[in-house]
């Protein structure tokens, strides 16, 4: 139990069922909704577990997202080192955060993103064709789940389509359970280098008249004007890779697995494709792959749920805890594509809520409209308990061998 100053355990808590959050969230939510946990380096942070408190905290301007601040809480040493290297606006506070985010608002307008639907349909159908031609068994992760967002990043930033393999390889290595810390660090650095070189090359093209893509526009309107420097632009572009690759890829593979685990739900989806948008929202809620995000540092005194958080104290507001709160979602641990899951916070809450969410939704909708229609007899090609789940910043599965 959480008397003030007494920690209830060490973060991160263990999962039991791979697709459910740690049982500790439900226990704490019922007994001590605002508690304190011990982190990898011996420091402490507040842990929120109720939906209402998590939303309130993520909306509170007294909590900073700037990971360079002393005492910023992190899940592990590896993540601390990975995040320390990030300088994008995901790690900035207003006003600089707002200035950077505003530069990208127009590219993620709902109507604009939905204009990519024909492209996405062609992409997904093409990848499914290749899968079919290859024949079973197939590892869904590199063949399909990662391929979709890798191609989309190239489309979004107007990169040569062949570069999708580079991104898949580098991000995969960065996130893989089998990579050594050095391999992971190198892969991360390679991705940043790629964007630094892209900025240099594209700047030359902009001066020669190139105008029509996101990167050129950012260079012309914000780099050459002095609104931001090359390092900031490099990290902004890298954020679009980071934000949109592993997240979407893991939603696709874990989403497929979730439907394999729930054949009645899958049958309902097959029978009535108009259920896809609801099913996607429920997958987002149920899986909440961004499971080690929503960390903050108080820069002001913040009060929530009768608890006083002091400046300098760390706060963890896990999205997965919010998305399984029985006050908001009846029978929260049940996967049910018929429920209205739109209140979920899988994309976060507050000013940092995922910029790419319309694109993520479009990708997932197109995928789940088509995937099981093409492979209605899909099954795992290995025993389920042999699957290896990735427990880094974004939750996922290392590989997903399937047959049909």
């Amino acid at each position, binding site marked *: 139990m959480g008397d003030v100053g007494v920690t209830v355990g060490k973060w991160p808590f263990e999962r039991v069922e791979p697709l459910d959050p740690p049982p500790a969230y439900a226990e704490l939510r019922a007994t001590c909704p605002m508690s304190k946990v011990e982190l990898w380096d011996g420091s402490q942070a507040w842990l929120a577990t109720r939906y209402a408190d998590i939303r309130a905290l993520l*909306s509170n301007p007294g909590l900073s997202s700037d990971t360079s601040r002393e005492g910023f809480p992190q899940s592990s040493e590896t993540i601390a080192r990975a995040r320390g290297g990030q300088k994008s606006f995901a790690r900035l506070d207003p006003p600089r955060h707002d200035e950077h985010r505003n530069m990208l608002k127009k590219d993620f307008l709902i109507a604009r993103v939905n204009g990519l639907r024909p492209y996405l349909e062609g992409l997904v159908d093409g990848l499914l064709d290749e899968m079919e031609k290859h024949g079973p068994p197939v590892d869904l992760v590199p063949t399909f789940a990662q391929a979709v967002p890798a191609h989309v990043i190239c489309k979004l930033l107007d990169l040569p389509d062949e570069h999708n393999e580079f991104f898949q390889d580098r991000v995969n290595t960065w996130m893989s359970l089998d990579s050594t810390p050095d391999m992971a660090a190198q892969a991360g650095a390679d991705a940043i280098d790629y964007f630094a070189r892209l900025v240099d090359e594209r700047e030359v093209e902009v001066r020669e008249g190139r105008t029509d893509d996101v990167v050129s526009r950012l260079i012309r309107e914000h780099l050459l004007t002095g609104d931001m420097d090359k390092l900031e632009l490099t990290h902004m572009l890298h954020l679009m890779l980071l934000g949109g690759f592993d997240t979407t890829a893991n939603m696709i593979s874990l989403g497929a697995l979730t439907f394999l685990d729930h054949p009645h739900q899958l049958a309902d989806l097959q029978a009535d494709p108009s259920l896809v948008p609801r099913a996607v929202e429920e997958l987002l809620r149920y899986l909440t792959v961004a499971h080690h995000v929503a960390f903050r540092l108080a820069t002001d005194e913040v009060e929530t749920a009768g608890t006083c958080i002091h400046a300098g104290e760390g706060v963890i507001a896990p999205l997965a805890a919010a998305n399984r709160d029985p006050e908001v979602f009846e029978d929260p641990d049940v996967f049910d594509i018929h429920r209205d899951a739109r209140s979920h916070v899988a994309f976060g809450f507050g000013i940092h809520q995922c910029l790419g969410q319309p694109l993520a939704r479009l990708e997932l909708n197109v995928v789940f409209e088509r995937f099981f229609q093409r492979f209605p007899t899909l099954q795992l090609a290995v025993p389920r308990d042999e699957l290896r789940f990735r427990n880094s910043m974004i939750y996922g599965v290392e590989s997903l061998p399937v047959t049909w």
Partner: protein
Amino acid sequence: MKAEIAAERCIGAGTCVTTVPTVFTQSEQDGIAVVLKDPVPPESEEDVERAADLCPVQAILLSRNAAAAPVSN
């Protein structure tokens, strides 16, 4: 019911647009949400309240013949 957007808060998430596309859209100029109908049609009131609750930055202000205020705190 009247819906207004606190433009300085809007981050262009578009949740309002996805929830009630008949009442909300996004400006092509700056990505800020725009209210299409004043007053909100009665049949859309419940959905508009939902949109206001879902807005990640609570930028939708609803009023009924009184001073505008956010729906949820």
